[in-house]
C-alpha cells in the first residue's frame, strides 16, 4: 500500500506540488494523468525515495508498505536496507539503461550487488525474467550493446532490470512515451499483465490515455501540481477538466503555481 499525506514540493520559489493526498491499495494500479510539467514525475521520484532536499524543499509524509515516512529516511539507511529496487522498483522514461554496459551487465549488475547469488543463479533469474517481458527469443540478446536495441526493446529490458529485484511496489514514469502506438499498447498490456501476475502495487505516470485505459484500476488527474480528480477510468472521461485535457485545451501558460 502507498499512502501520501499532505505532500508539497517546491523548486526555489515555484511550488511544483501541493496538498497531495493519495492512497493506493495493495495490488492496485493507479495511473497519474495530466499535462507535462504538472508534477507527476516529481511525485514518483519522491515515492521512489530517489529525490532529496538538494533539488528543492518538500514536506508531508509518504509511506510505502511497511516503509514508514520514507521521506525522512537518510540516504545511507535507504541504501543499507536496500529499500530502493528491492521494495520499490522504478521504470524510467526512455528506460535509463546503463549505456556503458551490454544487456547482460545491465541486468546482472543490480542483482549481483543486491543479492548473494552465484553466476548460474543470476543467469537463470535473468532468463526467466526475460521470458516474462517477452524478450527471450531474441538471439544473442545478452551480448548486445544498448545502442543496438529499439525503443520498445529498451523499455522491456529496463522493466526486466527492475523486476529482477522482485519489488512489491512498482513506479512507471511515462512507460510508453516516444513509442509508436502498437509498441506502446504492447508495453501497456505487459505492465498490466505483470502487475496482475505479481500482485504489484503500482503508480504509473503518463499522458497517454490509451495506455491508462489498459493499465489503470483507478485514475488520478493532476494539474498545476494538485490532484483534481481520483476515480475509475470511465468516470474520469466525463470529468470536464479531463475532457479539456484530452481535447488538447490545457492552458499551459497558466499551469505553474506561483
Amino acid at each position, binding site marked *: 500500500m502507498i499512502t501520501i499525506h499532505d505532500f508539497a514540493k517546491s523548486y526555489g520559489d515555484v511550488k511544483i506540488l501541493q496538498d497531495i493526498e493519495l492512497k493506493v491499495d495493495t495490488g492496485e494500479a493507479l495511473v497519474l494523468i495530466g499535462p507535462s510539467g504538472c508534477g507527476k514525475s516529481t511525485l514518483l*521520484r519522491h515515492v*521512489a525515495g*530517489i529525490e532529496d532536499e538538494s533539488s528543492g524543499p518538500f514536506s508531508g509524509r509518504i509511506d510505502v508498505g511497511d516503509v514508514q515516512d520514507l521521506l525522512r529516511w537518510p540516504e545511507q539507511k*535507504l*541504501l543499507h536496507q*536496500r*529499500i*530502493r*529496487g*528491492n521494495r*520499490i*522498483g*522504478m521504470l*524510467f*522514461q*526512455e528506460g*535509463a*539503461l*546503463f*549505456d*556503458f554496459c551490454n544487456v547482460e551487465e545491465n541486468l546482472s*549488475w*543490480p542483482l549481483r*550487488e*543486491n543479492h548473494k547469488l552465484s553466476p548460474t543463479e543470476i543467469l537463470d533469474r535473468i532468463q526467466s525474467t526475460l521470458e516474462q517481458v517477452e524478450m527471450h527469443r531474441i538471439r544473442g540478446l545478452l551480448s548486445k550493446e544498448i545502442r543496438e536495441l529499439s525503443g520498445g526493446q529498451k523499455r522491456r529490458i*529496463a522493466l526486466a*532490470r*527492475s523486476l529482477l*529485484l522482485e519489488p512489491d511496489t512498482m513506479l512507471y514514469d511515462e512507460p510508453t512515451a516516444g513509442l509508436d502506438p502498437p509498441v506502446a499498447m504492447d508495453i501497456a498490456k505487459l505492465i498490466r499483465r505483470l502487475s496482475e501476475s505479481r500482485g504489484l502495487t503500482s503508480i504509473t505516470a503518463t499522458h497517454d490515455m490509451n495506455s491508462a485505459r489498459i493499465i489503470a484500476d483507478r485514475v488520478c488527474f493532476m494539474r498545476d501540481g494538485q490532484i483534481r480528480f481520483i476515480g475509475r477510468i470511465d468516470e474520469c472521461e466525463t470529468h470536464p477538466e479531463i475532457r479539456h485535457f484530452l481535447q488538447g485545451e490545457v492552458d499551459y501558460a497558466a499551469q505553474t503555481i506561483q
Partner: protein
Amino acid sequence: MLATRYLSLGFAFLGRNVISFLSETGSSLETLGRSVRSIVTLRCKWRRSMDQIVHIGVGSIPIVTIATFFVGMVMAVHVSTALAQFGVSLTVASIVCASILRELAPIFAALLIAGRAGAGITAELGAMQISGQLLAMRSLSLSVEDELIAPRFLATILSLVSITLLAGISGILGGYIVGIGHLDIPFATYHGKTLDSLDSLDLYCGLFKSVFFGLVIAIVGCHYGLSARGGASQLGINTKRSVVTASFVILVSNFFLTKAFIHLFE
C-alpha cells in the same frame, strides 16, 4: 545616486560569485569525503577501479611519455646554451634530471591527464546524470559513490603517480638524446652525472605533487559531471570548466607546494 546603484550592483555580483564559489567548494569536498569513506571502508568497487586505471592511465601513457620526452630535449637544449657561456656544459645532466623529476614531469603529466581523463570523467558522469542513469542507479540500490566516483578517484591518483614516474624517465631520456647526440657529451659521462644528481627527495616531491594533482583532477571532474543539468550544451560547458578549473588549480597549487617543499627540506 548612480554611484550608489553601481556599488550595490557590484557588491551583489561579488556576493553571488563568492556564494557560488563556496557552494561549489563545499559540494566538491562532500564528493571527496564520500569517496574517501568508500575507499577506506573498502566498499569501492575494485573491478571498476581497474577498468578506470586502464581507461585513464594506460590510455594516457603514449601522449604523456612522448610529450615529456620532447620537454626533456627542449630543457637540455636551453640549459646547455646558457651553461656553455660559463663552460659548465656537463651540468646539463643534473639540471635536466632535477627539474624533470621535481617540476616538469608532475606538471605536464597532470595537465595532460586533466585535459584527457578529467574531461572524460566530466563528460561520462554528466551524460549519465542528464540521461537519468544516475537516478536509475539510486533506484536500484546501487551506490554512485562506490560504483562510479570512488573508482575514478582511485584510478586517477594511481594512474597519475605511475604516469609521472614514466614521464620522469621519458624526460630524462630526452635529455640524454640532446646531451649525447647534440652536445657530444660521452654517454658514460652524461650517465654518471645523471646518476650522481638523482636525489630521492626530488622523486618524492614529484610523486607527492602527482598524488595531490590526481586528487584535484578527480574532484573537479566528478563535481562538474555530477552537477551537469539540462542538455548537451550544459554538458559541453561543464566539460570545458572542468579542464580549465583543474589546470588552473594545478598550476597555482604547484607554486605553493614547491615553496612548501623548499621551506621544509632545504
